[in-house]
């Protein structure tokens, strides 16, 4: 019995391998066709651009009268300028990393929390979801840019001693972006009575301060979590309920481990997003350098340093979180 089975098996595999190979080969060929737009783009445009950008960072650029340009090699000068001569660069870099360390946990925890809330069955869920998703669609720079202009105009007004700025503040001001929604004193009082360290108090106060930014930045993360929550089988929850687990236990023993790959994805995404978003202070700093005298190459050198830091942070985040991720074994 077993022998015949073995024989048929081997015949089967032989057939499959001989036929499967050619099919696999044609499929592989069409795979190349499918990804060809990216291939063309990457090797014809992106890779030369990256290489050029590296080159530029070691050169000085001189625009010629006839429309061409000339490169003068200067070695590490641009990098030396960024690291040792520019007074702001290192400070801004450290600041933006500090901001990141502050933002990532806040955004990930907040978006997980809201995703769990929005995943429950209730009335008006569709409306809430639509509202929470608005920032992803709407606030991509323009609003922040206008706010920035307002702030600059206001600063100018204050410098001139104009009455306008004072009045705008007294009427609430048009540029109120939600920062004034919650009184800081309340939070301080609350935590002052509980005997916790001042660092924690400061962190919480900062989070409350930043609540508008955090809510606005966690749209995509929320949706990634939502899609993850939807993919957890309801049967697991049902069996938990049968065994008498409370909602709290179910969350920590089922939802959290099942969603942990998404936490890693979201942490990585948040790092990328906040590093490359337009309102990042480092990005705007590089932008101002770019527009300055001799700035294009210097800005490129700075951006390269910045990029290396981004990679480093990503590796650290992935290494720290990778150990805790639980992967569900899929049926194959």
């Amino acid at each position: 019995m077993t022998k015949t089975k073995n024989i048929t098996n081997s015949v089967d595999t032989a057939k499959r391998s001989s036929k499967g190979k050619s099919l696999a080969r044609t499929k592989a060929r069409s795979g190349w066709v499918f990804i060809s737009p990216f291939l063309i783009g990457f090797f014809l445009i992106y890779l030369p651009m990256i290489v050029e950008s590296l080159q530029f960072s070691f050169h000085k650029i001189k625009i010629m009268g006839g429309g061409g340009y000339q490169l003068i090699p200067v070695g590490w000068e641009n990098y030396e300028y960024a690291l040792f001569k520019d007074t702001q660069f290192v400070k801004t870099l450290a600041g933006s990393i500090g901001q990141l360390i502050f933002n990532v946990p806040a955004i990930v925890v907040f978006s997980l929390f809201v995703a769990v809330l929005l995943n429950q069955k209730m009335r008006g869920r569709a409306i809430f979801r639509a509202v929470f998703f608005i920032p992803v669609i709407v606030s991509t720079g323009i609003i922040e840019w206008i706010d920035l202009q307002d702030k600059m105009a206001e600063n100018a007004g204050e410098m001139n001693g104009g009455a306008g700025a004072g009045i705008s503040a007294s009427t609430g001001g048009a540029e109120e972006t939600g920062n004034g929604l919650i009184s800081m004193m309340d939070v301080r009082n609350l935590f002052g009575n509980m005997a916790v360290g001042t660092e924690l108090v400061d962190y919480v106060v900062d989070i409350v301060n930043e609540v508008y930014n955090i809510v606005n930045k966690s749209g995509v993360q929320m949706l990634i979590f939502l899609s993850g929550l939807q993919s957890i089988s309801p049967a697991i929850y049902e069996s938990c309920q049968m065994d008498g687990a409370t909602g709290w236990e179910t969350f920590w023993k089922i939802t959290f481990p099942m969603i942990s790959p998404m936490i890693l994805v979201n942490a990585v995404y948040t790092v990328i997003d906040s590093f490359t978003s337009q309102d990042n202070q480092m990005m705007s700093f590089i932008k101002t350098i770019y527009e300055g005298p001799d700035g294009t190459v210097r800005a490129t050198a700075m951006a390269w340093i910045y990029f290396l830091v981004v990679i480093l942070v990503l590796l650290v985040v992935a290494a720290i979180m990778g150990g805790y991720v639980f992967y569900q074994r899929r049926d194959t």
Partner: protein
Amino acid sequence: MDLSSMTKKEIRALEKQQKKEAAIRRIKSQDKLPFWTLFRYKYLTPYYAGKLGIAIFRFVLLFGLSFVILYPYISKIFFSFMGREDFVDVRVLLIAKYPTLDTYKAILNDNQYFQALMNSSVLSLMCAVIQTATCTLVGYGFAKFNFRFKKILFVLVIFTMIVPHDTIQLSLFMKFRYFDIWGLGGTIANLFGGEWTGLNLLNSNWPLAILSFTCLAFKNGLFIYIMRQYFNGVPDELEEAAYVDGAGVYKTFMKVIIPMSATMMVTIFMFSFAWQWSDMFYTDLFYTGQSDILLPDIVKVPSSLDTDYAAQTAYESAARNTCGLLILAPLVILYLFTQRTLIEGVERSGITG
């Protein structure tokens, strides 16, 4: 039943029982329960009270957060209808005392809004269509086919996502100011003894069209990633069935895969459209001239608006914000129509680690 053998007490108990049963039967026979009975047994229980408490807590929390999200827009909408006297009046918080449409009129007249709207619509639509098509193709290729270097190539996709714009800003500009692939054009020109420094593609839609077509535009790495995750979740049996029926790989893709992934494609379309719509990095970089006016360019205080009044800063800021509202309005309208598909699409993508 033998009544005589029972004591009086037992008879009374039996009667009571019968009455109870009759009452239950009566209640059950009615298809709608009397309100108070229902109320008492269903809602006045500790279980329900707990549930209600949680629901209220949840609602308040979500409502508050929605308010935080919407408040800036709400306040901007209210400010946009204010006359200049309102900014001085301390009693005016949101609702104007002297409502006026002057701000809107001035912006529509002075800031070339409709021309910018037209240009931006063409640009965003083009980018969104091309990006949706190419990212779907590439995502499908990465999800469903096995070929050599697949993993390395996918790492390259992620790589394009990680590199900050600023790193390649200068090279992007140079690339499209002196457009030339691998220096081929220059070499050919040199062969014929000519001088050629490349095509100047700035101030046209070409740079963004090329970037979109090659999946290098804004966040296209993310789109490819989303599409790949989605196609990973599509069972292989579907395609196998199509192959058995005699369809080739491309026919299967066109006839089976595209129709079933319309939701995801709408999602990608909406993302790329919205992000291109209010993008400032690429438009600043590629549109250096004054001739092509795009939506971000119209944010300024309109010249015919007389802002020289006591609260000038506040008024001018309101005018700028009204420009912002006018920019975002078409986007919001589009979002209202597509939000259901959009959210469904993202939820269904089943993005996993």
